[in-house]
């Protein structure tokens, strides 16, 4: 059984796992972003990066924007590549905190390892998504013969015109203004 969803099929790939991973990364982005925006001072202190609170909060906004992009867009691929670029920026920024005699170097190392791990996931996800064709897959099953009409569609148009719409289901006469005199008319049942 092919397990495809509308989303994955629309992107031209029957791969739900990558789709779920992309969404997971989107949620992660937002969560991390909120943390950076809400507590830049705590983070700066933990990483020995005092004075860089503004930068951290700015990175937080970037994370939130990317996360929303991933979750809300039809095609998350460019946004995941955006995450990869962001990861590189994060690593470069963290690397500066390794210089000199930062007493929190150990924390910075841990943070860099974590970012590197997520970067690997981001790269994997972005590459897999990029391999998908940009064209939607054709319908999985061919239902073009499922008319429901044993006599065919054309024969069936108006076949139930013997049916009289019950009085309580009829539109009031005044609200049937569309039937133009030059069009073939079905006799209107008397009200």
């Amino acid at each position, binding site marked *: 059984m092919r397990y*495809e969803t509308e989303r994955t099929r629309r992107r031209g790939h029957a791969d739900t796992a990558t789709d779920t991973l992309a969404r997971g990364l989107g949620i992660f982005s937002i969560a991390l972003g909120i943390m950076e925006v809400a507590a830049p001072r705590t983070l700066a202190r933990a990483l020995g990066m005092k004075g860089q609170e503004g930068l951290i909060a700015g990175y937080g906004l970037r994370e939130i924007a990317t996360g929303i992009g991933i979750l809300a867009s039809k095609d998350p691929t460019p946004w995941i590549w955006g995450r990869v670029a962001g990861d590189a920026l994060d690593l470069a920024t963290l690397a500066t905190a390794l210089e000199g005699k930062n007493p929190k170097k150990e924390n910075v190392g841990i943070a860099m390892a974590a970012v590197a791990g997520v970067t690997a996931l981001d790269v994997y996800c972005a590459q897999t998504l990029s391999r998908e064709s940009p064209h939607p897959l054709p*319908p999985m099953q061919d*239902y073009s013969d499922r*008319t*429901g009409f044993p006599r065919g569609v054309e024969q069936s148009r*108006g076949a*139930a015109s013997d049916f009289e719409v*019950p009085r309580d289901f009829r539109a009031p006469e005044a609200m049937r203004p*569309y039937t133009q005199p030059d069009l073939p008319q079905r006799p209107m049942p008397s009200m």
Partner: protein
Amino acid sequence: MKALVWHGTTDIRCDSVPDPQIEHPRDAIIKVTSCAICGSDLHLYDHFMPGMKSGDIMGHETMGEVVEVGSETKGKLKVGDRVVIPFTIICGECDQCKRGNFSVCERTNRNGHIAAKAFGHATAGLFGYTHLTGGYAGGQAEYLRVPFADATHIKVPDGIPDEKLLFLSDIFPTGWQAAVQCDIQPDDTVAIWGAGPVGQMAIRSAILLGAKQVVAIDRIPERLAMAEAGGAITINFDEESVIERLNELTNGKGPEKCIDSVGMEAHAAGTVDAMYDRVKQATMMETDRPHVLREMAYVCRPAGTLSVPGVYGGLLDKIPFGAIMNKGLTIRTGQTHVNRWTDDLLRRIEEGQIDPSFVITHTVGLEEGPEMYKIFRDKQDGCVKVVLKP
């Protein structure tokens, strides 16, 4: 017996439960030969409809053979009869039943007082569909107790396969009533949102009732293909603007008749109102997602009709009532008055005007039911309609 039992959100299991028994002289027990999963069941599966309790048996599209009858069903029903069971339980005698308004039968909802609190008045009892509508055990099971069985049944002849008859229980009359509510005129354009099973039946009904143009709106390619096979022009709302296309198809005037066969779980990827609904729903400030209703009210031709078979449960937000009022639109809605239409529809099946089995894409045993709920909900594997064989 085996039955599909609701345990919680997206948790339906095939359990062993006690066999049903005659509890009232008007009851009958049927041995189920076929039953189906309905889009309405998905609202329970996803738990958008309130009023379910763990242990409730699911299912309201059921047919089978009568194996036991209560003393007061005499003359109406006997052991061995082949019957389709309508999803609306009806007494056949109250003021509403006498008018043919079966889905608002005044007697069959044994929890009528709760329903009256929620809706102002009680509506009919329904099989396998929340305690607001009586909390009756459903028919996705080996046996079903049918209350008010002397009225609540559709007798069907032998010699026609289950697959052609089963949908008399719900989706065929539902699609039919949706079209009848439109009072279709020969030059009408009927736009139908949702190409699920109900939408598919509405398309066929609108064609049979002689609409000039039928337009189907969905995003699932194979459902759109099936809609096209039935004579509809299709719009993929993921790829094009529904409003623009509908106006194009009607010389800028909009469709005269609009049918919502989507209901409260409408999708609207990326639009502002969709985000708004998601947030409000998540924070429990709104229960339903009425994107389709908004679109219909906006695009419908003045003095046109909105027909709403799609199910809604509670409070809806940002409904453009200004458009509805100023354009003088008529809104018709309701759970289907199944038995009002079934004699006529059975005849049309027998005569070969229509064969509702076209919609079935999956037939499995009851044990595979829980998995099929997920596949049907997620529209995986080309799934449109699931039939279960207990």
